[in-house]
């Protein structure tokens, strides 16, 4: 099966007097209908990967190597105009913080219908009807009422549902979700994950799910990519990764995750020796490539 999203040997550099390498030959594939988890600590580069795919990498950065192929098309270097057609319609995004991702001075209605009117050529009433349907699909009660409300009137979980509804609104082929549940408590997190799973099953959309939480990955993803220091350390089917993790770092991450069901297990932070070793390896890679 050919991949929907195929990232090959991607390098991203921060253009400064001392160029800094943000991504080091990152390769990852997302097959159609698959949920791929991209896991790592803060600073691992996982958000950078998503930003490069979305074409919103910071202005002072530059892709110096590799390619991103989406649905058979190279999208590594697209013009703003070409990207506008792609984003929202074929690639959609669910952001991390539902508190800041919605415009606080605009009603929910226009924030959803803007997307629909632009991509689906709907008129005002058509877009409104569609928005009501979308909110129902994400299990929000009284959708007509919510459309009239402002973001601050909704809870965090409700806001995240609105954002998910918007992301899935144009039946995208790929949804990139960047830590969509990190700001939520466990109960709401579970509801949101169930919702994402349900929408994904119904639509066959592929999802690139970015998180630092291996637990979430174990429950949601088919395939897992583990990143650290801007490079991919391990890439394996979820089944395999959790049964027998291949990389020391993956094992260390698992040992650092507290579990209520195994009180006897000692909680171990990532050992400094390992972090040092990974940094050395990264330096060696830079010496080779740069």
């Amino acid at each position: 099966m050919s991949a929907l999203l195929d990232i090959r040997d991607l390098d991203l550099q921060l253009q400064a007097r001392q160029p800094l390498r943000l991504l080091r030959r990152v390769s990852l594939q997302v097959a159609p209908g698959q949920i791929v988890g991209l896991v790592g600590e803060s600073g691992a580069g996982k958000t950078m990967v998503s930003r490069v795919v979305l074409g919103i990498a910071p202005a002072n950065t530059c892709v110096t190597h590799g390619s991103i192929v989406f649905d058979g098309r190279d999208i590594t270097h697209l013009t703003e105009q070409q990207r506008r057609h792609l984003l929202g319609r074929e690639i959609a995004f669910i952001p991390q913080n539902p508190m800041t991702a919605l415009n606080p001075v605009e009603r929910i209605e226009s924030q959803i219908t803007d997307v629909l009117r632009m991509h689906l050529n709907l008129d005002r009433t058509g877009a409104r009807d569609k928005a009501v349907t979308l909110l129902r699909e994400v299990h929000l009660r009284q959708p007509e009422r919510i459309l009239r409300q402002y973001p601050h009137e909704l809870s965090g979980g409700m806001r995240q549902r609105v954002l998910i509804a918007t992301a899935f609104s144009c039946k995208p082929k790929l949804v990139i979700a960047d830590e969509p549940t990190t700001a939520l408590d466990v109960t709401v997190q579970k509801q949101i994950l169930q919702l994402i799973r349900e929408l994904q099953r119904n639509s066959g959309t592929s999802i690139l799910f970015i998180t630092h939480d291996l637990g979430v990955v174990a429950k949601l993803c088919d395939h897992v990519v583990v990143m650290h220091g801007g490079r991919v350390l391990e890439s394996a089917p979820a089944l395999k990764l959790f049964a027998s993790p291949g990389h020391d770092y993956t094992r260390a991450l698992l040992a650092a995750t507290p579990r209520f069901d195994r009180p006897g297990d000692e909680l171990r932070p990532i050992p400094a020796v390992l972090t040092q070793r990974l940094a050395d390896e990264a330096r060696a890679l830079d010496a080779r490539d740069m």
Partner: protein
Amino acid sequence: MALLEARGLGLQLPDRSAVQRFGRAPVTSIFSGVDFTVEAGESVGIVGESGSGKTSLARTLLRLYEPTAGSLHFKGRDISRLPEQELRPLRAQFQSIFQDPLSSLNPRHRIGTILAQPLLAYGRVRDRRAGWREAGALLERVGLPPAFVDRFPHELSGGQRQRVGIARAIALKPDLIVADEIVSGLDVSTQAQILVLLRELKTDGALIFISHDLSVVRVLCDRVLVMRQGEIVESGRCAELFANPAQAYTRALLGAIPLPDFDPGWAVRGDPDEERKDQQQEAVKMKIAGSVALVTGANRGIGRSYVKTLLAMGAKKVYAAARDIKGVEDLVKANPGKVEAVRLDVTNEAEAKAAAAKCKDVSLLVNNAGANGSSGALAAGSLDAAHREMTVNYFGVLYLTRAFGPVLKTNGGGAIINMLSVVSRVNIPALGTYCASKAAAWSLTQAARAELAKQGTLVVGIFPGAVDTDMAKGIDMPKLDPNDVASIALKAVETGTEDVDVGDMAQGVAAGLLANPKKVEKEFAAYLPG
């Protein structure tokens, strides 16, 4: 005497969202009737969803809010209505760490000033210089370089800032620290560091630790209180409460924690209590420990994995069935009394019946034996392979299900595992006849499930992608470890899951079939050589 004791503590605040014109805001109850004690040196967790009143309770315990009902005693002294002036000297003895370290550290002060402030306010140090020296020592205690005293909060990472928050809380050597969701904004590895640090420091005083994540509480606390809608619904020692939660709400909180174990069904299942009700009515499940199983095709591949995994999961006895029992002799030898060899050709109905007559104690039947002629339906020269596939993969399952149905019934229902395949769901024309036989086996699985439901037999269908065995030698794609497949299948029996798609490929195909079956069919058709 308890360090901190709350009796019938309650808090009501004006509900500003419901303010009426020219009127006072109606009051709304945030929490009520909270009873609990914290002993010196003890750590107590408070858990609940957002909105359950945990943070308000924490603030009331710190007397940042004045309780509107009940009493709060600190070291025997009633502090619930003490004016701020009299409270001030006591405040040194109970300190707090807040959730968001960025907003709780003054952005315009250097870390040294931030840490010296409480020391100066309580006269613990003579002057600013001594305060800064002490600040350096505090930073060292929380694992930061003392040189950080010169930095501003924005120059630190989230984990480092939270360490500063901890350093400030321990500066006055308090008897009690209240920590409110202090690790929820951090990633896993930073969280682990902070938890380990807190556990090291914990010996110094008591800790009240507020979190929505029960896993974190388990690491740190001796006792735990569960809050829901402003009331404590359950409390107890961690070990007991986690092992045996009495309240459905606590179980739901536990069930909501995604543990790092592969479980694709988790995000599809609902509330564990609802599930339990459903399962009582519908699906049956069975414990592998103590069960007696019969595995067909046990001489190789997934069959061998089944035998080993069954024993590892505590099965009482396993009949290793094979056409040629030489292939299972080593299993028998390695597990004396646990594994018994059974000669069985699944294509022979009489032998299936004989096996059922011999193995009367079987409660789990694993229909694992399979045959694969590896050819296209129309391209094949002879039809022998196609016949053989059908006889083994379909009739074999049928014979054994018929023979063992009554045995399972007498043993209380039991379970059957049928090894199907992703190709039961869609045909790969390059293996046309094999896929057809596997599709027949799936259809048979559905029939058996319906017919055996009334005798309480669980019939599980396992749909793996390519598995790393002799049979799949020629297939060029990522393969599953047979041991993983066996353990997933057996777990399905334990959880009462009827159909399991195992592995990336199978799950992708199942999802694809839901979305667009024709597309999947065409895609597999493309694998036909030539």
